[in-house]
């Protein structure tokens, strides 16, 4: 299997695209944002909320990891994801615009909204997403000034998966890209 190469520039480029695409969704009608494509499936807004919830578990971990990383003295280098972490990341990453395999979401990551959301509540959900993923972006940028390639972060599901910080960024980004595909699928099935 070819190596999974990680660079902060690649992550920033993809994250900018992701945030722009999610930002454009805010223009959609309430019904498109809040209608699930089928019973028990998530609406677009629930997918966005899920991304926010999932990232929330990483905020403190990332801040702590960056705080303990020393200042960078060498050039930014390409990092190769380790075997187990590569498997986890690739499981999230969409391949040729498709989600690779579907998986059951743990209860703690489930989005819960009341019925009949107001525009204000919808705006709040987008603001929360923007705030959190801007944190991810700033963390990737801050990581460029630090030696982060050996700073460990445990995943939100516990120490069964432990990332180096750039692997963690890659996982979070790939997870968000996976759900962006799901959003597109949802919108396609509604139209």
């Amino acid at each position, binding site marked *: 299997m070819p190596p999974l*190469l990680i*660079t902060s*520039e*690649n992550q*920033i*480029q993809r*994250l*900018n*695209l992701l945030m*722009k695409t999610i930002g454009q969704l805010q223009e959609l009608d309430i019904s498109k944002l809040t209608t699930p494509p089928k019973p028990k499936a998530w609406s677009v807004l629930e997918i966005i909320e899920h991304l926010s919830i999932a990232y929330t578990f990483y905020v403190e971990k990332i801040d702590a990891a960056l705080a303990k990383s020393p200042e*960078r003295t060498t*050039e*930014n280098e*390409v990092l190769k994801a380790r075997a187990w972490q590569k498997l986890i990341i690739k499981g999230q990453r969409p391949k040729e615009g498709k989600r690779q395999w579907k998986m059951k979401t743990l209860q703690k990551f489930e989005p819960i909204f009341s019925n009949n959301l107001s525009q204000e509540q919808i705006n709040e959900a987008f603001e929360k997403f923007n705030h959190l993923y801007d944190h991810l972006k700033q963390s990737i*940028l801050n990581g*460029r*000034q630090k030696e982060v390639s050996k700073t460990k972060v445990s995943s939100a599901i516990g120490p069964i998966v432990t990332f180096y910080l750039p692997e963690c960024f890659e996982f979070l980004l790939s997870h968000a890209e996976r759900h962006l595909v799901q959003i597109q699928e949802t919108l396609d099935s509604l139209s």
Partner: protein
Amino acid sequence: MEDVTYQKLKAFFPQVHLGAVEESKFRSLWVLKSFNRSELITEAGTTERYFYFVLEGVQALYILNEKGEKVVLGFSYSGSPSGVFDSFMYKTPSFTFLEALKPSKMLAINWENYQSLFELYPDFQTWGHHFFRDILIGRLYREVELLTLSAEERYIQFMQRCPKELRVIPQKYLASYLNMQPETFSRLRKSTHY
């Protein structure tokens, strides 16, 4: 802006002759910006907000290829312009990154103020004609070099005209700019005289 800094900026616009009041206005449009080494001045996916004039440091303009590797398109350095011009002019998201390879100080002018120069002062039309002509011809020469010269010839041509500041940046950037492997660049550096 200090006088010595302003003189550097003024020298970049040799076709422009302004009166005292106009000069004061022109001077006020520029903002000093500082960047750390490795800091991304402009990110791919965002829109370039400024046209820069470089006071200190070296910056690389690059695009990421399919493998995520940096492909260097050009450099800017003391006394040269900088920025992602296509994104700046068209106000569209940039395909390229602009990164400070060395700690950098740059004067920046935003799009509205940059445009106002051309509308208010006819000399900037002349400057713009010369500036974009030189850029166009420079890019044309570079294309000819990349398509017709051997790696060794490209290396020699580049090193003969390259400012000293560029010789101390990491070799991988120079190698990428010259479309060769870092190992090839390193070998040429050891074996070639220019």
